[in-house]
């Protein structure tokens, strides 16, 4: 097996190529490399899992039919392990149940071999875009949660009630504190959460959803 052509791009994105067939693996790796995308290739699903790619950005190009752990098994494994990379499936003879199963489990694309080059490259670009968006969302989420975690318990309560649409007076009554103290807490929340308006704070609360 040729070691993956690993070109660390500025975006820190890698295309992980997993196929047991040497011709396919080397061909696709060359193709991806030739459009200046970093690619790492693996001969089996197990090999790929040893690289612990949880934090990586990019996407996976995955052969469905492989000895040992096949593509669908790997997808299940990745979902369980919380690996968020979008998966482009390649199949020799893709039957409908298999396709449905893969798409239900979150496959980005399902391509049939022999793969049309432009189709594959488009799929890769879309998957990368998807991944970028997902990553920035995840980053924002992480930031929000960090801010949320920095709130004191009283501030959390105040934020919850404010974003639920309660007036300062109602909050003061509910918590048994003065309206002035509510205003003080509210100012703290806005500052810690980095919100410049009530609308902004409400949006943040929606994003955090049931987490808080």
């Amino acid at each position, binding site marked *: 097996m040729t070691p993956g052509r690993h070109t660390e791009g500025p975006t820190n994105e890698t295309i992980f190529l997993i196929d*047991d*067939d*040497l*011709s*396919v693996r*080397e*061909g*696709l790796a*060359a*193709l991806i*490399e*030739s*459009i200046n995308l970093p690619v790492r290739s693996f001969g089996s699903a197990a090999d790929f899992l040893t690289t612990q790619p949880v934090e990586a950005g990019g996407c996976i190009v995955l052969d469905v*039919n*492989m*000895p*040992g752990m*096949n593509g669908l098994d790997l997808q299940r494994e990745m979902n369980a392990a919380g690996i968020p990379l979008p998966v482009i499936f390649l199949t*020799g*003879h893709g039957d409908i149940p298999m396709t449905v199963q893969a798409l239900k489990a979150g496959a980005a694309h399902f391509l049939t*071999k*022999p*793969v049309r*080059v432009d189709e594959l490259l488009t799929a890769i670009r879309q998957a990368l875009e998807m991944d970028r968006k997902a990553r920035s969302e995840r980053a924002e989420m992480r930031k929000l949660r960090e801010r949320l975690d920095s709130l004191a318990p009283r501030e959390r309560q105040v934020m919850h009630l404010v974003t639920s649409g309660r007036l300062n007076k109602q909050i003061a009554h509910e918590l048994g504190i003065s309206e002035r103290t509510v205003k003080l807490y509210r100012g703290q929340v806005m500052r810690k959460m980095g919100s410049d308006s009530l609308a902004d704070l409400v949006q943040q609360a929606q994003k955090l959803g049931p987490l808080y």
Partner: protein
Amino acid sequence: MKDEQLRQTGIGAVGDVPWGTHFFLFHETMEDLIDANIPYFQAGLETQELCMWVIADPLTEEEVRYSLKHSIPGFEDHFERRNIDIVRGREWYMTGDDLDLEKVTRGWKQNTDRALNSGYAGFRLSADTAWLDKRRDWKAFCEYEKEVNDSIVDAPMLALCTYPLPGSAAAEILDVARTHQFAIARRNKGWEVVETSQLKQAKAEILRLNNNLERRVIERTSQLTAANEELRRQMAERRRAEEALLTAQAELAHVTRVTAMGELAASIVHEVTQPLTGIVSNGNACLHWLANVPPNVEKARGAVERIIRDTNRASEVIHDIRTLVKKTPPHQEEVDLNDLIYRTLTLANGEMTPEQVELQTDLAADLPSVLGDRVQLQQVLLNLIMNAIEAMRTISGRRLLTIQSAMRDPKSVTVSVHDSGEGIDPQNADHLFDAFFTTKSQGMGMGLSICRTIISAHGGHLSNVANASTGATFEFTLPAHVVKSDNVDIATA
């Protein structure tokens, strides 16, 4: 010593006889006697035989000489040279008044010896018995005649005995007939041969035996000819049947090969698709690298090299399929079984991966090649491998396909295919190789039957060697192809 040449008797009815002929005639008149003896002696004298005529009353030597002289040219000369003697019976046969047959026998012997010693062809005599005193000497004379009859057979001697018919009793005639080989008698003015019953019987018996033998020879010959013909026909028929069988087998093998190819279609497509994917990807990569400024020639070259490699891979698969599907008459070539195993596994690969079949190969290094039809042998391997995969389809445990090649003895090569399926129901074990026997819902039941036929035709044997709950093992053995030591073919896998 007996001359093989026949002697002329001069008597038309008798014709030619061999030496050792002893015959007689009954005469009624003196004319009869002379009439028979003149040609008899003329023939003897003309063929250089020593002759003697023993006469009896009423014939006199004078009369006899007169008759002979007038009938036989140069008789006097013969007589002067003693080519012919004329003696009187009473003097020749008797000493004094008594019959002296010992003297007579000696006389015949002396004359025979004289004939041979003096350059004659043999000795011819004619003797009349009219002088005989029948009442006194008849019995002794008959004994003597019988002895002559028995002993003359081996001598260069002809003897004509003449008896006067008038006054001969029936019993006497019978005695005479018994002691001679045959008789001649006057009939319608000519002489006629009268065979004795014994001779007649003997001749008839010989004739019968001859006819019988001839008939049997003819019968037997025609039987043999017919049998031969039948055998030839059967052989030709058998040859035709054998040829037809071979053709039918090849035909059937081809049909099952094509059927197997049909079952393998998805796998085959996969096996061609894989290198095609590689080719098209490398091609595009190559174009991208060439479009770079400056072009990345090194990378482009790598891509082209992979294109060539993948193209060869696809071609090989297509070539194998084509030979398996193409109808070609069986032909012999050296076949490397390890190589054939690899190629066959390539074709079946697409059947194994989706079924999660693990493959384990244990192929002997330096395996000698075998002589045979590559396509047919690949068909056998493919069939055994496909059966093994099929056998593991329903099990939930580990699916392990093991293929081994080995040299168990210096003269043969063994290939075994083992699966980890449920094994073969012992009830079915005896019928595995029967035509049209199948346990599959969609099987024709010809696979193993044809495999065994193919292996047998290659001088080998295919069998189901082990059959356990851990799976079945099929194994075939083929004679190793012996290559001369200066031309060793090393197996290249």
